[in-house]
């Protein structure tokens, strides 16, 4: 990065030293910029204060703006250097008697953002590209032994909530709606799925039939039209 010495316009000597091929107004402008350059003095600040100040200054700076960050802490000097390098921010740094001065230029014209953007979702597994759905027509999985069926359905729901690609929709009907009762031992994986972005729909006719509308712990109640619509637009429909 070109180091520009601030010029005192009244000094004829300084003018003589300046590159005489430079456009005078450019030199004047750069001088004004250097004199007005924002300086962030972090001397005496506890880690990670200096990085916080640096990031703040970057966010508040304009495209092409250069500002100074000063630190008297060797660790902060190392960490700011690392931070700037990793984020590909143009800078130079000089040291004098234990004081480091960074000259940092914002070349991006916008706040330092990350590939992921500024909003962030914890534990957000991808929804399946093909958008698969699950239709759960009973609180039991399989036929032959009801206790086994109950256990299997519980394991299935837990496994579903742990998949890398979660379903778009899970629709519950007939006795399947009971799986979403607040005090059911299957409510947690269903709530887990819902938190991760799966749409949970409970058939309204079924909820009314079993008289459990005020005991539901997850999802929304929808009519058969909605269920038909969601299942028909899914890529695949699983029926455990």
């Amino acid at each position, binding site marked *: 990065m070109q180091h520009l010495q601030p010029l005192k316009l009244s000094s004829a000597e300084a003018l003589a030293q300046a590159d005489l091929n430079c456009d005078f107004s450019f030199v004047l402008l750069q001088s004004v910029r250097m004199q007005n350059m924002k300086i962030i003095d972090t001397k005496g600040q*506890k*880690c*990670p*204060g200096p*990085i*916080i*100040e*640096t*990031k*703040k200054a970057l966010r508040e700076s304009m495209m092409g703006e250069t500002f100074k960050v000063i630190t008297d802490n060797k*660790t*902060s000097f*190392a*960490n700011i250097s*690392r*931070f700037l390098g*990793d*984020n590909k921010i143009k800078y130079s740094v000089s040291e004098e008697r234990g004081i480091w001065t960074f000259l940092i230029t914002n070349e991006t014209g916008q706040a330092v953002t*990350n*590939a*992921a953007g*500024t909003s*962030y*979702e*914890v*534990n*957000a*597994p991808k929804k399946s590209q093909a958008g698969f759905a699950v239709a759960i027509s009973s609180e039991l999985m399989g036929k032959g032994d009801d206790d086994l069926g109950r256990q299997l359905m519980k*394991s299935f729901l*837990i*496994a579903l909530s*742990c998949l890398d690609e979660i379903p778009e929709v899970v629709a519950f009907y007939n006795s399947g709606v009971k799986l979403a009762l607040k005090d059911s031992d299957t409510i*947690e994986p269903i709530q887990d799925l819902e938190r991760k972005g799966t749409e949970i729909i409970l058939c309204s006719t079924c909820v009314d039939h079993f008289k459990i509308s005020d005991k539901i712990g997850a999802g929304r109640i929808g009519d058969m039209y909605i269920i038909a619509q969601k299942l028909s637009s899914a890529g695949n429909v699983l029926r455990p």
Partner: protein
Amino acid sequence: MKIDLLQMVDQGGCSSKIPPKQLEEILKHLPLPVDPDILVNIDTRDDAGVYRISDDLALVFTTDFFPPVCSDPYEFGQIAAANSISDVYAMGGIPALALNIMMFPSSKLPLNVYSEILKGGFDKASEAGVKIIGGHTIDDSPPKYGLAVIGFIHPGKLITNAGARPGDYLILTKPVGTGVIMAGHRLGMASDKDLNETKRLMKLLNKSGAEVMKKFNISGATDITGFGLGGHVLKMACASKVSMNIFMRKVPLIGSTWNLVDNGCIPGAAFTNLDYAENGTSFSSDLDYNLKMIAFDAQTSGGLLMSVPAHLKALVVEELKKSGLNETSVIGEVVQKREKSIYLTN
């Protein structure tokens, strides 16, 4: 006047751990004791040493101590004790006995602070069934506290950081971000909610996590502490001679950890941990910078990271959640050894 122990910690906690890179250099030259009864030695850089006493008994032996990580002396005692005992749980042992290790500035702090710290340690140790039967104090500033702990284990039931196998899934029992939140708190940037949640997590014993590991005969695990998630994953991958894929978006974070890091609140220890681990780590080109730094945020009394065979994954997650570890998450997978030890992606 209420004492704030954090006022005594000048450098924001960064200086308390020797940078892992330097520590590695020192340990390389240490002679390795040779004894067939040493079941876990220093060369695998595990959470504790293990020594066989008889066919069915081995001792798990570990120590940890550090300067204050919070303002209140009693809470500091609780957290330091939980942190020290955690290593025994990580090895699958039952913690039993401990000694206090205390450095206390008697000219700068009143003696009741000393007893408050010890009380916190005692209460947490009692919760774990640990009897503190001695200790040692020297005068030093800032104060530092922790325990040397002995646990018992059956020699055939060790859980070590060399027990991860390709095909396993990596399950983490507590969210990360204690370093970021406490640094933010020192600068007035963290909310009370985040601070309280962080302290709660730091005080939480890894006891129930250890019980689940033992129930399912898990053989590979470690606890996440000062070297950050990335640092401890690296140690485990190296000891197990495997590689590990970590999906940062699956790692549970405490409260506003990501936002704090996005505002530049990146503790110095994260940089030193990154420095240590980066030669062994592959970073995806689109890896979120904040998540990268969070991966190396030094943790205090963090959760257990266990390597779980695929067919047990869902059951282990269920059991851990049932035991109250609500933020248990599957954060990665173990694969055959590749060029790098860790593959970090979003």
